[in-house]
């Protein structure tokens, strides 16, 4: 691990000021992903700003009937919160489908959104990777692509975003709240939070340098049957091959988002509309722009079948 300076931020203002002062600074909260990558020197911040002392660890009701989830709320606590279990079960289910008990005890809401891809070529520092070393090339393209993206890819990167939680946040229309280095705040709809890889796959979100996530808010509950179905190589503690997060109302209308298929949770408006016509119709809309390789083309029928199982369960 490369050497770095370390400081504990006493206030949000101090945290963003410190991040702006030092080039190469990073915030650290749970640390479960960042420290892993620092050990491999894939991440090498010169300055770590520990934000664990900030008061972003609460889940509060919002005036419009939703929830405001502090950036530092641990995955375990978010999944177990009674309001989340009752009103946003999709979020509890997605969180519980990810990682292990130990990791969920540490991992935070904001950190989960910002976790890096698990593309094996991103992790292998002996291989070119445009995300790790911009301009060096993509080893995944033409390589072993069984678990790479089939949607939203570019000629520079075909990595997926690994989060389960983000899929639920996308289906629930969450908003990411931030504090900028200049003291301003902004709200970014989760639909606009992740940037497509394009020519700059190293820039993954709309966050500006030094911008700090303070909370994620959920609009008022939408009810319905909420189901998160994750398909993976082993029954627990593995990343998704594909996952389906769905909210299905009693009249058959609803929303659906996919995980394990793109650089972001994948949701298509036309697919939500098509849900009334069944899994085949909705999957066709979700996958309309898919560009699979022969190694990951299995994800297309797998998504349709998983969605079909989810819709049956929702009706049952």
């Amino acid at each position: 691990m490369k050497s770095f300076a370390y400081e504990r931020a006493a206030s949000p203002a101090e945290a963003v000021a410190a991040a702006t002062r030092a080039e190469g600074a990073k915030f650290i909260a749970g640390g479960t992903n960042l420290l892993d990558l620092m050990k491999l020197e894939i991440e090498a911040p010169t300055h770590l700003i520990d934000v664990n002392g900030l008061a972003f660890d609460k889940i509060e009701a919002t005036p419009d009937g939703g929830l405001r989830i502090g950036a530092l709320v641990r995955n375990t606590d978010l999944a177990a919160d009674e309001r989340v279990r009752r009103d946003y079960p999709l979020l509890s289910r997605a969180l519980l489908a990810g990682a292990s008990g130990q990791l969920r005890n540490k991992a935070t809401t904001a950190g989960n959104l910002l976790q890096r891809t698990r593309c094996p070529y991103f992790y292998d520092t002996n291989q070119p990777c445009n995300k790790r070393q911009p301009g060096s090339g993509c080893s995944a393209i033409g390589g072993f692509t069984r678990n790479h993206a089939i949607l939203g890819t570019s000629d520079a990167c075909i990595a997926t975003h690994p989060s389960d939680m983000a899929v639920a946040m996308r289906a629930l229309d969450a908003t990411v709240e931030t504090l900028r280095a200049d003291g301003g705040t902004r709200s970014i709809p989760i639909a606009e939070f992740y940037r497509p890889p394009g020519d700059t796959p190293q820039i993954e979100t709309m966050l500006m340098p030094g911008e700090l996530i303070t909370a994620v808010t959920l609009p008022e509950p939408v009810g319905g049957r909420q189901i998160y179905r994750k398909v993976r190589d082993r029954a627990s503690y593995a990343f998704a091959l594909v996952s389906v997060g769905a909210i299905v109302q009693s009249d058959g209308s609803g929303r659906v988002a996919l995980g394990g298929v793109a650089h972001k949770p994948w949701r298509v408006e036309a697919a939500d509309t098509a849900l009334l016509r069944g899994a085949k119709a909705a999957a066709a809309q979700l996958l309309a722009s898919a560009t699979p390789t022969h190694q990951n083309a299995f994800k297309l029928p797998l998504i349709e079948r998983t969605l079909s199982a989810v819709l049956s369960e929702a009706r049952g």
Partner: protein
Amino acid sequence: MPDQPTMSDVSMLVNGETRKLRLDVRTTLLDALREHLHLTGTKKGCDHGQCGACTVIVAGRRINSCLTLAVMHEGDSVTTIEGLGTPENLHPMQAAFVKHDGYQCGYCTPGQICSAVAMLDEIKAGTPSHVSADLMAQPQLTAMELRERMSGNICRCAAYPNIIDAISEVAGRKT
């Protein structure tokens, strides 16, 4: 940034005792415990949060000590396997692992035991899991629940059935 290590003081309550250390800030909690406090019961397996051998209990919660910096635990209470029991006075979970032969080589065992102890507290607190049928109900102490909740602790010797028997006995479930 020069390649000089940054040193920092940290004070933690380890197994009930205040321990003050001056550490390179890069030192993980795992390395602080093993290399600086010589508490070698906690094991380093993968060092990347994938195996669970390094599991310790911090402020009542099980975490991977390899994926957290020691300096991030100023003032925290840390319980390692040495703090749970001693050879003369085993923790009930340790005694159950012995009784049910919940290991072969034993390398993952301290992590398994710390994880199991804190995991049962999570069930008591009503924390649901991926296999809980009803998110709103008190979780059941079934083997399926225990297996899911212990999936962050890998046993290369595959002593899993005996580990589940040991945990089930402590949990008070008939096996």
